[in-house]
Every structure is written in C-alpha cells, then in structure tokens.
C-alpha cells in the first residue's frame, strides 16, 4: 500500500514528539511528565514506521512505551507528589543547560548545512517485507560482537541492581 499524506503525518508526528518533549520538562507532576514522554515515544514509533522500519517501530512500542515506561511510572507513583510539587522545578543550573542546548542545536545546524553530503540523495526504500530479516542479518552477522557486548553489559547491570536491591542474598 502506498503511503498517504506523508508530509501531513510527518509534521503531525514530529509536532507531537516535540510537544511531548516540552511537556516532559515543564510539567511539575512527575506522572504527567512520564505520560508526555510516552507520547513522544509513540510519535517516534510513528516516525519509524514512516521510514519503512516497522520492526524498529514495533520494538519501540513494546520495549519503551510498554516496558520501560511502565517501570518509570512504577517508581514515580511511589514518590510523594505533594513534596515534588513544592520543590523548585528549575534549579540554578538552567543557564548551563540552556548553553548546552544552544550548543547542541548549533552543532545540528552546522552539520546539516555543511555536511549535506552525508545524507543520501534519495530516500532509501528497502523492501517492506524483508526489513525485519535485514535487521536480523545485520544484528547477528556484522554486528554480532557489539550485540553480545551489549547483552553482557545489561547482564552486569541486572546483577548490580539485584545486589543493590536485596539486603540479604
């Protein structure tokens, strides 16, 4: 099926992602922030779909929105809301933060202007049906070592978390 109204959906999703991002840092209520983050993640999943990467989109939903954000909420729910509301939202580091954001933005603009050769001329169109297989080939072929290293890293993190959480083992 040919995509319909590509431009419209791109701007819609991008706008939603940005809106979510802004809400994440401006909401005082941590749960609302988390919900805004979920909005961003879902919008990103939509963008992945538009880039003909359905597998990545699916994984984005199942892992980030469905898994990790639930654990986020899990923790946030146990935090006292009243206390968080009283606390100052933007502390004195906001100048540094602003500078960093401006620097990053400048970098992006610079790269976009100067390094347009980096980007492909036309949109790459991998066949939709074999997209998932291609990811698998890359992941378990060319990048197998990196993949396994990442797994090991996660395993270390899991063990560390268990050690820290459990008083007695």
């Amino acid at each position, binding site marked *: 099926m040919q995509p319909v109204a590509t431009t419209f959906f791109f701007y819609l999703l991008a706008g939603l992602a940005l809106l979510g991002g802004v809400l994440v840092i401006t909401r005082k209520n941590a749960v609302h922030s988390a919900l805004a983050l979920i909005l961003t993640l879902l919008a990103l999943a939509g963008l992945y779909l538009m880039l003909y990467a359905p597998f990545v989109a699916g994984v984005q939903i199942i892992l980030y929105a469905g898994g990790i954000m639930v654990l986020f909420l899990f923790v946030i729910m*146990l*935090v*006292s809301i*009243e*206390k968080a509301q009283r606390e100052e939202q933007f502390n004195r580091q906001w100048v540094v933060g602003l500078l960093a954001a401006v620097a990053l933005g400048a970098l992006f603009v610079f790269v976009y202007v100067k390094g347009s050769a980096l980007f492909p001329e036309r949109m790459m169109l991998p066949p939709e049906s074999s997209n998932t297989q291609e990811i698998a080939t890359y992941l378990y072929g060319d990048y197998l070592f990196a993949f396994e290293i990442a797994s090991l890293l996660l395993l270390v993190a899991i063990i560390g978390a268990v050690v820290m959480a459990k008083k007695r083992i």
Partner: protein
Amino acid sequence: MPDATKYLSHLELGQPDKTFLDSNELIINMGPQHPATHGVLRVILKLDGEKVLGTECVIGYLHRGVEKIAENRTYTMFNPYVDRMDYVAAVSNGLGYCQAVEKLLNVEAPPRANYIRVILTELNRLASHMLWLGTHALDIGAMTPLFYTFRDREEILKIFEKYCGARLTTHAFRIGGCLYETYEGFEKDVESFVRFVRPKIDEYEGLLTTNRIWLERTKGVGVISGGDCIALGVTGPVLRASGVKWDIRKAQPYANYPEFDFEIPTGQNGDTYDRYIVRMREMRQSLRIVEQAVNKIPEGPIMAKVPKIMKPPVGEIYHSIEAPKGELGYFIVSDGSTQPYRVRVRPPSFVNLQALDLMVRGQLVADVIAVIGTLDIVLGEVDR
C-alpha cells in the same frame, strides 16, 4: 513467662502517615466496609510493600450491648437475644445459655430434649462450617464452593424451619428443655439429609483438598503453634488444627454427648490447610453424631419442670460448650430475682481474633484475608 512482646504488638499510629519514599511502610485500612472482613471488622495493616509488619483490629461496629440487655430482661426473655450473637450458629448459642441457666436452677433437661438438642446443635455446627467453607474459599478466590455449601446449608435451614419456624435465629431451645415436639417425619428428614450431604462434602473436598492453588494458598499460611493457641486462649478447630486434642464435648461433656461415638479430628501444622482439613473432618463427625442420635432418640417428655417465673437462687455459674467456633461460655450471676444480675458471654470469635496479629505478621496481604477466613469469626459475636 512467655515472651510478652511476641503477642502484644501494637501499631504506633500516632505518627503522621509517611510518604512512600520516606519510609517503606504503608498504613492501610482494611474495613469496616471490605468484602473479605466478614462483616464489619476493621483491620489496620502496617505494610512493607505487601508484607505485613503488624496489624491492629478495630472492633465494636456491631456492638449492641447484649450483656447490658441481659441485666434488664428476665431469664426467659433474654433467651432469644443470644441467637443474635453468633448468628450462623444460633442453636449452639441457645444451647449454651439454656444449659447455663438450667445449671443455675439446678434442673436437668429430659433425655428426649437432650437428643433433640444434640441433633439440632450438630446440624448447626455443619451449617456454620459450611458457611465458613464457602466464604473462606471465596476469600481465597474460589467462587464455586460458596454456592455448593449454601445449597446444602439450605437443607439444614429447612429442617430448622420445619422444627421451630425460624431459619437463622432459631430460638429452638427453652430453659429446661425444648418447647416444640419434633414434627412428623423429623427423623426421616434428618436421616435423608445425612445421606444427602455425605457425598456433598466429598464434592467440596474434590474442588479444594488437592487443588494445587488451594494448597499453595493455605499450606504454611497463618501458622500458630499449640502453645501459642493456649497462651492466646484460642479454642475450637483452630486449637485442634495445631495439634491439641481438646474438645469440650469430650473433655467436660454436656448434654448427652458421652452417649455418642465420635472422634476429635486434629492437625499437626497449625496452618490454614490443617484448619481446613480439621473442619472438613468435623463435619463428617457431626454427621456421625446426628446419625446415632436420630437412631437412638427416646420417647418421653421434652421439658423439665421449671417454674413459670424463674428465680434462680443467689449464686453464680460458668458453663461452656463447644460451639462451632470454639469455647462458648456463659458466666451468669444471679441475685435471686427474675432478672440475671450479670451475664457475661465468653465469645470464641472475640478471643480467637486476638491471634490474628501473631498469625499474619511477616506474611502477605493476601494471607491476612486467608487468616481472617480461617479464624472463622462472626462479627456479631466478636462485638456482641
């Protein structure tokens, strides 16, 4: 000296409710309006996550001042009130009260009355255990046994209804014996009920006894040792499930229980599963007693000679019977007038409920529900 702190823990509720992050403790209020607290029991739970650190029972929501009422009624007038305490075992309550006053009056119920009393009391024990089983299983999440037990309890209530016109708060007995002669076909009804209900008890057991989830939910849950039971005054099936073979029907028999051949089932581990097994076996023993009684029931008068206006001599008496929940005692002080000077009810549910804290400490919230169910409390009796 027993270690007092083991039994006497109280929540320090004075401090403000801390937030979750500040401490891991969560104070949660269960009841008085809660589906699993069997009425209006309110339990304040101190939790660490789902683990119970301590409990405190708040009772009295159903307090009607039964003991005060007794002081303003004559002995006969007070008789129906006792049915309203443990309302699922009203016949047992009546038996205890009538026998206590009979003792005070120094009269004996005639043999036929005693047989009728034993039959009805044991049927009532069955009814009480059935209600317990249904609600206990419902608490643990098994819906179906509730309807099975209520279906069969209905047959018992029908016998009560035919005998004395009431189903729940029966007021079946009078001081000195029974008021009503058995109706036509009473023996046949009871016999056919016994035949009817035996396979039904197997049916309940088929649903639960070897059910894996049931075993996991009940084994090792709410363990209480025999020593702790005695220290806390816990009686009835709970005590017997902890391995103490003590039943007032055998230890200090009343009515004509010595004439019947029955056993006292006991458990070993004192956990919820053993209490379940003990009660199931008790139901079978009750059927045995009923069967024997109905076969041997003699002819004769059903009422002893008691004066119309009862004025027991000055004195006091304590009489206790084995109610379905445990030792139900009546302590009656007479000043020689028509009204008792003081009636004290020793309620088994009230005393048994005290063991809740010991039984659930260190366990999970779901176990609190299981333990409240297994203690088989009736709030009407706890609060009186």
